[in-house]
């Protein structure tokens, strides 16, 4: 890293300290304003939690918006199976400077589950996406190295955490 880059980085860090980013609930208002048709059912169930449903096609710009507004930490990505017709991908996003955890849910059709990968926005999304893929069969478009992580390779295609999974080897 050159000295110039280092100086610029340091300046960015100082800026962050001087202007603390808004990591409180006002972000939810801004989020629904910015993405008027893509964010709905916003709720605040408890003081440090906020929940919203998002349009699966708009996940990437929404995540980019959250990252730019100080939500710099992705806690986890989970899949939830709701047979017979839908699956949810649930994102928990939070920040290193505040207690608010934003839960974003994107519903996708169960017969063709795929959603955009957010690996190039949050680096650590990689393993969470791989895990959700191997357990639910949800395809993350453009995820680098989308392959099994915890399971053995023979079990790729079994999708064991789906509700209708009947055991290995899968009789269906």
């Amino acid at each position, binding site marked *: 890293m050159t000295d110039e880059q280092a100086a610029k*980085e340091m300046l960015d*860090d100082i800026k962050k300290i001087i202007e603390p980013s808004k990591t409180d609930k006002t972000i939810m208002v801004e989020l629904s304003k910015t993405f008027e048709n893509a964010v709905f059912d916003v709720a605040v*169930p*408890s003081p*440090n*939690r906020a929940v919203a449903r998002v349009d699966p096609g708009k996940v990437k710009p929404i995540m980019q918006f959250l990252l730019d507004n100080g939500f*710099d*930490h*992705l*806690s*986890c990505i*989970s899949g*939830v*199976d709701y047979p017979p017709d839908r699956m949810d991908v*649930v994102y*928990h996003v939070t920040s*290193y*400077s*505040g*207690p608010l*955890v934003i*839960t974003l849910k994107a519903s996708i059709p169960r017969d063709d589950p795929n959603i955009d990968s957010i*690996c190039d926005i*949050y*680096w*650590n999304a*990689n*393993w969470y996406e791989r895990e959700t893929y191997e*357990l639910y069969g949800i395809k993350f478009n453009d995820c*680098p*190295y989308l392959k*099994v*992580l*915890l*399971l*053995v390779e023979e079990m790729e295609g079994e999708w*064991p*955490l789906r509700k209708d999974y009947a055991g290995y080897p899968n009789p269906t």
Partner: protein
Amino acid sequence: MTHEATQITSPPKSSEILLHLGPQHPLQPGPFLLDLKIEGETIREAELKIGYIHKGMEKVFEDRTYIQILPLTDRICYLASNSNNDVYCRGIEELLGIEPTERAKYLRVLTNELCRIQSHLLGIGEYTTDVGFLTMFIYMVREREGVVSLLEAITGSRLNHNYARFGGVAHDLPPGYKEMALKTLGELKKLVKSHDEMLSSDSIYLRRTKGVGVLTTKVASELGVAGPPLRASGVNYDLRRIEPYLVYDELDFNVITQTDGDVFSRVKVRLLEILESIYIIEQCLDQMPSGPYKQDVMPYITRPKPGEVYSRIEDPRGEMGMYIISDGSDKPYRFRIRGPAFATAQALPPLLIGTYVADVAAIAASMDSCTSEVDR
């Protein structure tokens, strides 16, 4: 940080060797495979393969009633079993809309901090063996015995405590506990300080650890590293402070941070956190109110109303989260475990690139990983 850093992208050239480290190796308790592509002594690419002890816990939990899950949460990681009980119980309490009693809150904080001390002691011990400092391991295990006995006196078991309950805890303190605890912890404080002095002044140890495996503040937060490795890089992130649960807002403590982000500071953070935990325990023993330690009536079968909760805790290794969806029945509809060791393990391969083979043990062990929790 690019994603290529987590994978071995091409077969080794004639000047390179592919080295399999694992799945069985003395580096850490628990099997994982670390593939290294090395050229001479330098690591060019690294890839971590996990899943050797995948237990399918998330699937298992969907088929158990809420009270049956409680002892199983211990088994996610035996060193953090008490915090796993606690985070699970707080999640269910939120779903049920109940609060633990005031005394139970203090008892949970007390056991959580004891749990943190014994986990850090064993973590440091294992790490020092990996850097060739076996004496320290013996010391740490000796010190840990006292702390584990303190936990045993409250919870009745030495490893998988199964102590927290919905709305309370399983047992009250035994008589004469305060004197016993203060005696053991007073000795421990002196010993930890002398160990800290020893580790900070041994020139061979310093050359082995200073400036090795450096994680800068920016990279550590970008990679999502959790717990002591994150704080050693200068990120002031501790859920006890950021989201004070139980009674942490009534207690006085410091969040330990270091700025170097190398192997040395990660161990330093753990040593100083032990002292801070002792201070918290002393306050707990002084301030603990009398009163009931559990709910008067708690039904055996729990049926929370439909809803969901994401509860988190600062466990010895960092942010442990549980995302529980209830559909109104006596079993959870979905149970997601977000472990800190999983998050930290993911950041290991990029950290190893460019370092020497001889430093792999030091760097990997300084992360204090727990394969059982990574695989779940």
